[in-house]
Structures are given as C-alpha cells and as structure tokens.
C-alpha cells in the first residue's frame, strides 16, 4: 500500500506509523478470551428449541419427556418463565406511526420465522441440554408463509402480525424539494420527459439477503452470583446491551455489568440485543447460577440477524450532455418477522447517500419497510450505504451506456470538484473535504484503465471465450455515527457521542478507557498511538481498556465506522484535559507561570531555560500530592465526551477487471485496484487491513453470498456448505492505496475506514461483470453473479430459452448441502 500525503503530516512520532498490533501477542498464541471460553464454576447451559416452520400456530408444547432427561434442571416456555409480555427493544422508530410488533423472547402462540425460539432447556452440560431438546415435543398448525415483499403489501395478503393490520412497517420519505435542500424530483422527471435533450433511465436492482457470518458464533454467560449480574457477551455493544437489558427486563442498570471480552468479529451482526441473552439473564436470576448459551453455526445462520434485502427502483434524469438532473429512489426493505434494534433505520442510513459524489439538484427517497416471515434484518457492514452506493454506481453505468459515454467521464462530469469543498449536497449534508480527482487519477493509472479498455476491445473483436469487463465505483459514504442532534432529527433512540477517560498511573503508565468496543479493529494499537502523541509518552506505556461497563462505564460502542472518528477524538479531548491539569502542576513545581511553559514530547519546559519535568513525573507528583496548587485536585485523570459536529465522508475510486468465461458463465476477478481517501491515517497497516477485509465482504456480496428461503420459508442456506463464504482460494490480492485529504470536522483529520471497502466494492464488481457482457446484449445479472446466472443471462440475450432455476431446492448430493440441519427431512446415512 502506498500512502500519499496531500498535506505534510504534523510532526508526530506515532500517528502515521505502521505499528504491528499490540493485541496480536495473545491472539497468535491462543491466549484468547472469547465468551465461549468462559465457564464459571457451576455454570448451567441453555439450549433453545427452535421452530422448524416459518409461520405457524403453536398448538401444544410437551416438555415432560425432556424434563426426565439426565442432567436437566428445567424446560421452559415463555409462559413458564412469565416473560410472555416482554418485548425486545427497537431503538429506531423511523416514523411516528411506525408499526412495531412485540418481539418476544420466545414465541408463545405463533411462530413468525423458521428458527424462532419456542422453549429453552437448562441443563448441567451443553450436551445434556442438547439431548433433552430433542425430547421437547411441539405441535404446530402451519400458517401461510409471507415471503415476497410486493405480495406482502398487496391487498388481501396474509399478515405476519394480524394485530398490526398490515405488513407495512413504515414508509419514510425524503424529498429535497419539500425539505428545501434541492428542487423537486417530480418536476425534474416531468421536465426530462418533455425535453428531447434530456433522458430518463429507470432500473430495478435487487439487494439480496446476506448473513454477516462473523467467525465467532454468538455466545453469552450470565453470572448472577455477586452483587451485580455479570453478562459476558459476544457483542459489539456492551453499553447498549446493559441499558437495553434494563429497558427489556427492568433489572436496574446499576445492578448490571456487561463485559465484551475478546469478540470474534461482528460486522453489524453483533449489535443486537438478543432474546437468548435476555433468556440467560432470566434463567440466571431464576436458578441463582451462571447460565451460558453458545449458538452453533447453523443456529447463527438461521437466527442471527441478516442484512440487506431490498428491492430498489431507481429513476435517473439527465441532460443528453451527461449532466444529471434528478434521482428518484423507491425502496422496499425486508425487515423480516420483527424489528431489530436499529433494523427499520438501516435503509434510512442510505437515504442520504444515493446522490453520492454527484451534484444532483433534486432527489427523492421513498422507502417502505415490509414484514415477512423470515429472520429479521438489521445492520450489516455498511448498513444502508452499500445499498445506496450500489444503486447509484450501477445506474451511473446504465446512464453512461444510454448516452454512449465512457462511464468514468460521465462521473467526472458530475462529481463535486476538489475546489467546491465544503459542499452541501441535495440532501443537506455538508461534505467537509474530498478530492475525487486525485483518487481517481491515481487509481486509473495503477489499474492501466486505457490498456484494459484496449484489451477489452481486442477480446470483443476476436470473440474470445474470455471476455473482459471493467467495473467502476467512485464512492463516498457517511460514517462516524453520529452527531447526536442529527440522530435526534431522525428519531433515533440514542445519541452518537463517545466517551473516553485517561488515568495517569503513579508509575508512569497511562490507562486509556474508551467507550468504543473493539472486536478486531485494532483499537488498542491505534488509540495507543494517538495517546502517545497527545501526551508524549512511550507507545508501550499506554494501556487501552474497553468492553467492560465497570471499567468503561460510559460509551456507545462500535459500529458505523465510529470508533476512531468519534471514540478517538474523545480520547484526544480527554488527553487535552490531562495536559491542562499537568501544566498547572508543572508550573507550580517549576515555579513558573503556565504561560512560560512549553509542552512538547511529553515534557513541560520553562521557555528559555533547561528546567523541565516530564508528564509522567507530574503524574507521580500528583499521586504523591505533597506539593500541588491549592486551587485544584491532586489528579491528572480526565474524562471527555465527544459529540461529533458532522459525519465523516471517506471516499475513493475502485476499479475491477472482471473476466467472464462466456461458455460456462464463470466469473473471475482478475485485478482490483482501489485508492481510498480516509483522511489522516493513524496506522497504515490497520487501514490496509480494514480495506482488504471490507473489499472481501463487498466482493462476496457481488460474487458468492446469498441467503435463500424455500417456498415454505425455510432457510435453504442454513450451513456454511450452502452459504458460500469465499476462502483464500476464491479471492485475489488487491492493489490498495490511500490518499489523504484530512477531514476538517475533527482535530486529527481522520475519516472512518471500517465500512468503506464493503460499500465501494460491490458495484465495481457487478459493473465489471455486466461490462464484460454488454456487447452480447446482457443488461443485468442479479447478485450474486454466479456462473449459472451469467450463463442464463447470455443465453437469454441470444434469444435461447433456458430452464427456470430452482433457487430453493437442495440437491440430494453434495454432502451436507443435501440437508437443512435445522429442518432435517431425513437421514442421509
């Protein structure tokens, strides 16, 4: 990776350095502490008995046989536990009239998706609980599943929640004309339709359903021994989990301690408040013993929240010279059976990103959220913004085709130029900084755009079996969630600040406490670098503490690429306060006035003298407290809560060279180049790693992953055999680079990076696949662009009719692909 600094970095020793990570030492030696590795003495184990049916009335539950199974302490339904009235929280009521069903801990009368819990077994071992679960007999009366969003909204459709009277959760609208941030799209479309020098292009895109598929399955241990109930959980959001446990179960927040120990990835998939977590709390209270739950991978695929799943109807208008004039976005978003913690708001996070880097004068966004009898959807890496980026970058390509333009030239014509920043967009956001020209020029040069276009021409001319396509995505996104006032205006149920504390220990070490909750991002390393610079202390002397509400009592956790741009800035603010306090004591001890002191490299020196003291000496002096100013407390320790003034707007240009085997339909990613602008880079290694991983997930959406249901609402992709995650053998090495236009909205100049790769890459891949086939008459291939889909698209373009593909049928062959483990039809052996 190359780093191009646009402006010289400030003279720092740590920020910008490619430090290898502090946290690795444990993880590479197996000295890890993931939740499932924690088993306090006396721990009981919970197993959830789940519905095999998507939609059914529960007619009877017989637990008698299970109760006689060895080692079983109890088998419970919601009624048995007295939790029938408990509902899990949704923190984002996007409209005042949003329809929200109760999301129970266990289904009582009706199950609403395959995988919903109906009963729980508590036993002395996980094996005993699992054995007894087979003995729980539940009878169901099947109801019609609700699987198709458009059908679900039609008159007379079966209702997922009859008490709501509709399958529509809410419809949320943003209209730049009405908001006064731009003009009217309806007028733009009418004008374009009437104008022979304008064009209207309409397309429908599908965002398939995805599964976050973090590597560590979800797990929790709830220990009720001791004055506070301790919850260890594989979660991204220990603080939110604590508050929401109180909201859900009424346990006083002060009686709860939540610990997120090592957490094996999340990608949004671990921001929920889980029925299983709440059940463990209830059972721990009931038994007085620690209660543990760890899901299997199959359970995780089935019941952990899914992501994406939208139908996108996009209309773009433009002058025939290429100038865009309007964008009309209609979305249907599948909520699944219930509302997750922020589920309804996920599509809304995309609302402000459809205009992307382009100067649209008019934009309207209409999103209808729909209930179906599927697993609920919630945040997955990017959450709303990948969907928006996909739609706009796909339709920019479509517009280029309609106008006969090079797709990059068309983008260049419409994007915000470097000189126009700060720029207020059609949706009212102010992009603080950016340089689309720089990222694009560098990416195109590295990619050899012209050379590949030439090769593409050659292959087309010769009718080569392997056709080449070039996919472009010039993306931006809004992250660093988020200015609290903006969240308030969107009816989000919390703020967007982050907290930090710095404790100066007597022996010279520094403890940094952050409310962000890392789970692989490298917070310990990056935050240590920041603090080392701020306080002038050695990097090694900084210890970062997080993920335990007793240690870090205040925080809003990690999601939405916020840890650095919100949490990191909170740390800077706390460090500034430490320095202010230290300076007072230093002045006192050095018998100088504060104005005469300079602070540099961790030392306070009296200007013009060689007198000085290090901040660590001051910390010791404060600890001793023998001699300090009378008007202050003997402590340097400081807290800060930082509420960001704006979102962070990373951007970049991503280019993919796609090879398509026109005989088999097989797609190969031959070359991927991206140049991302994420502002100031704290640690290039970590940034590069975030980009790589983000790319892999975005590319996997384009090429590999899809959660599918059969016509009865059973998840077909219920194991990792069927839900095909790419391995190392399925991906190439990426050519990534970073340029830096520092953010002006925060003192470090940093921008978020966690989601950028995922948001950017999906449309680059799909644009490339279609570009390879466009000359054959192919205009679209749905995601994932499997070999079969590509082959059928080619056949259809040739006018050949082919078979309907059963998307939901297991082959009897292919090992475990033959069976749905959650709903076994029969034995294979």
């Amino acid at each position, binding site marked *: 990776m190359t780093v191009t600094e646009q402006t010289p970095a400030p003279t720092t020793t740590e920020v910008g350095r490619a430090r290898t990570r502090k946290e690795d030492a444990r993880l590479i030696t197996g000295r890890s502490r993931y939740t499932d590795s924690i088993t306090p003495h006396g721990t009981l184990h919970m197993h959830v008995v789940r519905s095999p049916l998507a939609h059914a009335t529960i007619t009877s539950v017989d637990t008698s046989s299970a109760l006689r199974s060895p080692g079983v302490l109890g088998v419970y339904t919601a009624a048995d536990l007295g939790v029938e009235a408990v509902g899990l929280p949704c923190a984002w009521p996007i409209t005042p009239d949003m329809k929200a069903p109760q999301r129970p801990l266990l289904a009582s009368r009706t199950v609403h998706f395959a995988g919903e819990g109906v009963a729980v077994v508590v036993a002395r071992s996980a094996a005993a609980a699992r054995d007894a679960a087979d003995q729980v007999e539940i009878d169901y009366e099947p109801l019609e599943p609700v699987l198709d969003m458009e059908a679900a909204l039609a008159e007379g459709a079966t209702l997922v929640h009859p008490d709501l009277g509709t399958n529509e959760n809410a419809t949320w609208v943003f209209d730049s004309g009405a908001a006064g941030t731009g003009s009217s799209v309806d007028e733009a479309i009418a004008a374009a339709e009437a104008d022979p020098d304008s064009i209207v292009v309409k397309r429908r895109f599908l965002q398939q359903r995805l599964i976050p598929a973090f590597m560590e399955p979800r797990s929790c241990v709830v220990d009720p021994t001791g004055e506070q109930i301790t919850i260890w959980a594989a979660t991204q959001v220990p603080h939110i989990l604590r508050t929401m446990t109180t909201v859900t179960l009424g346990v006083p927040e002060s009686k709860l301690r939540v610990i997120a120990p090592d957490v094996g990835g999340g990608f949004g998939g671990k921001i929920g408040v889980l029925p299983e977590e709440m059940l463990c709390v209830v059972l721990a209270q009931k038994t007085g013993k620690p209660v543990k739950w760890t899901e299997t991978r199959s359970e995780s695929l089935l019941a952990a929240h899914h992501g994406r799943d939208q139908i996108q109807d996009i209309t773009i208008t433009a002058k025939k010279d290429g100038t865009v004039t309007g964008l009309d976005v209609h979305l249907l978003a599948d909520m699944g059976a219930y509302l997750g913690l922020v589920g309804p708001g996920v599509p809304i996070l995309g609302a402000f990103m459809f205009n992307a880097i382009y100067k649209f004068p008019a934009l309207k966004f209409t999103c209808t959220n729909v209930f179906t009898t599927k697993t609920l959807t919630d945040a997955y890496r990017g959450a709303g913004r990948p969907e928006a980026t996909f739609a706009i970058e796909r339709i920019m390509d479509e517009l280029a085709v309609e106008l006969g333009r090079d797709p990059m030239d068309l983008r260049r014509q419409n994007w915000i130029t470097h000189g126009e920043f700060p720029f207020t967009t059609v949706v009212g956001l102010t992009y603080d900084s950016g340089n689309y020209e720089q990222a694009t020029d560098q990416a195109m040069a590295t990619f050899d755009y012209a050379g590949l276009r030439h090769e593409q021409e050659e292959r087309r001319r010769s009718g080569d079996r392997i056709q080449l396509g070039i996919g472009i995505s010039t993306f931006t996104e809004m992250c660093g969630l988020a200015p609290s006032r903006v969240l308030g205006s969107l009816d989000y149920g919390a703020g967007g600040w982050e907290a930090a504390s710095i404790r100066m220990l007597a022996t010279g070490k520094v403890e940094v406490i952050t409310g962000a909750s890392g789970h692989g991002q490298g917070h310990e390393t990056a935050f240590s670098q920041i603090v080392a610079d701020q306080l002038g202390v050695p990097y090694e002397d900084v210890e970062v503490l997080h993920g335990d509400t007793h240690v870090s009592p205040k925080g809003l956790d990690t999601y939405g690429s916020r840890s650095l741009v919100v949490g990191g800035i909170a740390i800077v603010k706390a460090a500034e306060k430490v320095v202010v306090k230290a300076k007072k004591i230093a002045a006192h001890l050095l018998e100088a006035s504060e104005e005469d002191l300079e602070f540099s490299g961790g030392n306070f020196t009296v200007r013009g003298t060689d007198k000085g003291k290090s901040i660590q000496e001051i910390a010791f002096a404060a600890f001793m407290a023998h001699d300090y100013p009378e008007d202050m407390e003997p402590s340097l320790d400081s807290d800060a809560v930082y509420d960001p003034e704006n979102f962070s707007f990373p951007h970049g240009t991503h280019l993919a060279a796609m090879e398509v085997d026109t005989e088999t339909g097989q797609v190969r990613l031959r070359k991927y180049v991206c140049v991302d602008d994420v502002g100031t880079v704290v640690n290039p290694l970590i940034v590069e790693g975030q980009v790589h991983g983000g790319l892999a997930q975005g590319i996997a959406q384009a090429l590999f992953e899809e959660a599918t249901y059969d016509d009865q609402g059973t998840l077909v992709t219920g194991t990792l055999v069927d839900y095909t995650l790419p391995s190392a053998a399925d991906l190439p090495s990426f050519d990534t680079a970073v340029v830096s236009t520092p953010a002006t909205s925060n003192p470090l100049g940093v921008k978020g990076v966690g989601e950028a790769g995922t948001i950017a890459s999906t449309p680059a891949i799909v644009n490339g696949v279609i570009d390879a086939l466009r000359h054959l008459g192919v205009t679209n291939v749905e995601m994932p662009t499997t070999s079969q889909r590509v082959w059928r698209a080619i056949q259809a373009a040739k006018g050949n009719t082919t078979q309907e593909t059963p998307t939901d049928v297991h082959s009897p062959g*292919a090992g475990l692909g033959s069976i749905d483990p959650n709903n076994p039809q029969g034995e*294979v052996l």
Partner: protein
Amino acid sequence: MIPAQFDYVRPTTLDEAVRALSEGGEDAKVLGGGQSLLPVLRLRLAAPTLLVDLGGIAELRGIREDGDRIAVGAMTTHHDVVHDELLHEHVGLLSDAAATVADPQVRHRGTLGGALSHADPAGDLGAVALALEAEFVLAGPGGRRTVAATEFFLDYFTTALAEDELLTEIRFPRYTGWKHHYEKFNRTAQAWSMVAVAVALKVDGGVISEARVGLTNMGTTPIRASGVEAALVGQPASEDSAKAAAAHATEGTSAPSDADAAADYREHLARVLTGRAVLTAAG
C-alpha cells in the same frame, strides 16, 4: 455441534470389525476417516447406536502392487493417495481427483474407502473409480467378495455394501502411460463439485486408442460417459475431436436440479467440461 450418544469400538483386525458391525445391527455405522460422518452426527442428521472405527486396522491402510492391479486399502487417506508414487505412475487420474477433495485437513483424515462407501454423487472419487473400472473388495460375515464398480454404485448414498459388510480395498487396473485430468467446477474452492469430469486417455502417435470418462454429480450415482469414450477412440487428440466427443457427455445422465444449477445448466457444463478435460488430458 454435539452428536447424540453412541457406543464406540475400535477393532484391530478386519474379522473383529466385521463381527462388531454384524452384532451392532442396523444402527451400527462404520467410522472411516469420519470426514463425512462426523458432520452428519454433529448436526444430528443420523444417530447410530454404535460406531465401528476402522482406524485401528493396519491392513486396511496402504497402497500396494497386486499383480496387474494397484490395490488401495479402504482406509488410505486422500493425502496418501495424492502423494503416492505408485498411483502417480499407474492410476494418475485418481491422484488428480483426490487432490481436489475438500481441503488439506480433510484430506489428512478422509479415506478413499470412506468416500466411495458414502457414495455422494457429488463426491469426486466415484466417477474416477467407475471410469477406471476399479474393483471393490467387500468383507462380511460370509467372507469376501469382489464387486465391479459398475455394480457398486446403486443410488444416492447407496452402494452394494450390505449392512454388515465393509469395503476393504479398491483395486485399480494399471493405466501406466495414460494421460489424465480431473476437471472440477464448483462455486467456491471448498464447495462440492457442481459438475466434474474425469478423463484418462491412451494416446498412441497422436491418436486416442482408448478412453475412460466419468462424470461427477450428473445423476444419482457417478456416471460413465461411454458415448464420449466411443467417440474419442480412433480420433486424433485434437480440439475438434474433443468437442465432437463432448457432445455425447449427457447421454445416460439424469442431472439434478438445485440452487447451484438446474439440470439444463449442468448438462451444458458437462459438455463444456468434458471437452476441456479431454483437451487438458491430451495436452
């Protein structure tokens, strides 16, 4: 993730194993390498009462020359098959295909006999055994019998093995000097074959004198592509003859339809991949 309870025995001789299996009745299962069985047990898709582990029987493991045959013990791992010089020299197609089975860890444990007995039509080794006219040596309470590959595979996960029989050895004729290739098509590297084609050719002076072609996942069992073989014999090892022969690839197949591929696409793939496999082998 936690299998149901079962009993376990680890006999050290074949006779003991046969007896244990016989006494275990219909709910006894043979544990070979365990790479297909254990996942099934973990998901509780099967609940045998007894596992008879063949891992302790030394005679079931190893590769040896046996007259005009190369005999592979049923408990020989894929890894050992891939790295065996005898097989490389005389049954190279088996080495090619075994190298594509699952992943390295699974190949360290999974066995040739286990894979063939499991008889998943998407498994890679059945088509090879069938095309190469392997013999299967079966041992049961009544003694040993030898079954031709054409008689071994009966249906999905169903073979000529009786409930109280074990597969002990797979015997391959020698294909010394033949050219070979296993062309596998799958969605991701660790996925099972969507379709795969096993090809062995005897080429004399640029002309194909004999051909063996097997298809993976084109029916309820592995399929021998006899039509392709017939079309290849006597033809030059060229692109044209490969293409012409490949047109026969779907004869006698009954391709399954599933989410990865509907039957017509599988049939198309079988033709394309057969042509490629022949060309690669010949090249």
